[in-house]
């Protein structure tokens, strides 16, 4: 068991895990909780450096190995630099070229691109629904009917209002019942996993036994 790779991270996990637990239980230590929160902000800031380093390394290697795809790597690098510079100098500025660049990149490149990927869900959901809603057994037929009612009910009006009321019932009674069951299980699972990690029983995430 090496010190740096295994023992030290394990000791840190145990110490900070138990500390976190105590901080939650003892109000008198609340000011330490504030310090912990401030540290978190700083640590998260450093983490992005690791990320950018990894991304750069990945693309440099890719440019060497797959020259036919290097155009994508160049696009990645230029986007990374341009956006970082524009945000760094333009976000807080009220006027100026960097501010204009940042605003335009954000409003007319980033926002539409992000929204586009999200809206792809509309298409994927059609093909997924097409496969999932198959009346092959009585359970799946039940799912099919419930799904149909909810879909109609969400856009109901006039004579379709009966679906609207049924939808409200489906969403607030059977759905909630199932969700609660799953959520209680998840809650306990999370608690058990946390305790396993804090006590050092589970250490696969440190890379092995």
């Amino acid at each position, binding site marked *: 068991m090496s010190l740096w790779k295994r023992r030290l991270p394990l000791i840190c996990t145990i110490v900070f895990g138990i500390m976190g637990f105590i901080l939650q239980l003892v109000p008198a230590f609340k000011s330490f909780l504030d310090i912990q929160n401030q540290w978190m902000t700083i640590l998260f800031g450093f983490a992005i450096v690791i990320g950018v380093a990894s991304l750069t390394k990945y693309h440099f290697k890719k440019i060497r190995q797959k020259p036919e795809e290097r155009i994508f790597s160049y696009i990645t690098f230029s986007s990374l630099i341009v956006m970082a510079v524009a945000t760094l100098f333009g976000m807080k500025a009220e006027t100026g070229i960097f501010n204009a660049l940042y605003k335009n990149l954000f409003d007319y490149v*980033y926002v539409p691109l992000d929204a586009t990927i*999200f*809206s792809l869900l509309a298409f994927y959901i059609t093909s997924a629904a097409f496969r999932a809603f198959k009346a092959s057994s009585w359970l799946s037929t039940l799912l099919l009917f419930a799904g*149909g009612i909810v879909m109609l009910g969400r856009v109901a*009006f006039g004579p379709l209002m009966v679906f609207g009321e049924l939808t409200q019932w489906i969403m607030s009674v059977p759905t909630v019942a199932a969700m609660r069951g799953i959520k209680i299980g998840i809650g306990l699972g999370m608690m058990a996993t946390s305790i396993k990690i804090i006590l050092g029983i589970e250490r696969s995430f440190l890379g092995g036994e």
Partner: protein
Amino acid sequence: MKKKWYDVILQIGKPYIYLGMFIVVVVPFLAKCEMQTYETDISKTMYEKIESIYKYNQKNADSEMAILFAFDYGPSTTPENDPMVYSVLRHIFLREIPLLVWAPYVPYLDIAETRLNRIAKEYKAIYGKDYVFLGLAYPVDAYMISTGSDFRPLFNTDYYGNDVYSIPLLSKYYSYDNLGLVVSITSTSMPLFWLQYANALFDQEISVGTTAVSAADFYPFVSSGQFQGMLAGLKGAAEYEQMVERLENKIINKDIKVYLSDLYRDIDTSQINKKYFEPKFGAEEIQVAINRRSQARRGMSSQFGAHIYVIILILFGNLGYYFKNKESNKTTVTKAR
């Protein structure tokens, strides 16, 4: 062998299905069809909660409650979350409830700032007195916990760089004690953070507006009363839009076009800080503002098309499967003989 009709149906290529979806979504939207919708209890609960803060503030002019509004969504879900934000902010400004705003991630900041000032402008709200944009609250759990006592030390300055201790609104509102409600409009699981930290630790009441995809996640908390109502997807936004429209017509009691063009006409605009918004309305801007008031209901018409389309597809698909199975059963039976 000749293809049977059900084979044709079952083998429709994905691109054609996607094209159909594109058409049923785009056509009603471009045709500017508007759809009225029925109002569900969970949306009404949220509306009533904000109304109750207004009533409380009327009675207790010196210990008014504020609302903390969290822009917990990014650029990707603006089409679904924006209409919620617009109508809820409109409600808050109409009722003159003090408003604090923050956003948990950098890409959300710009969205929050433009939306907030856009609506503030329509009601002559004054920055620092009626509303404050605190800026980035990252990592958000730290900020949620700090709001239990005082969030100001973590912010130091607001989004615009003003010292938080110099902003009049923040001398009164800096902890859950004076917050009547937290509104989180989101496409993420942020409401669960609010639940864990603000509600469980500090008994803070929370209302949520969320995309339809994640709404199912939060229904249990709405029915248990941990969330004070919820706007579920575009439909929830459309419902709120209708309710706020009724309220606005009642309070303003004027054609919106006239109201907006008169808003900054007769007052001394030199007193208003142009950093936050330009105190005047152009004709085009007024039109956009009017369109914005029915954004969700226009979206609902596209949603109607999409839902009906998916139902038809599922129906056709199942008919195809049914007849194909029937046919294949028949052939196996004949072969067995």
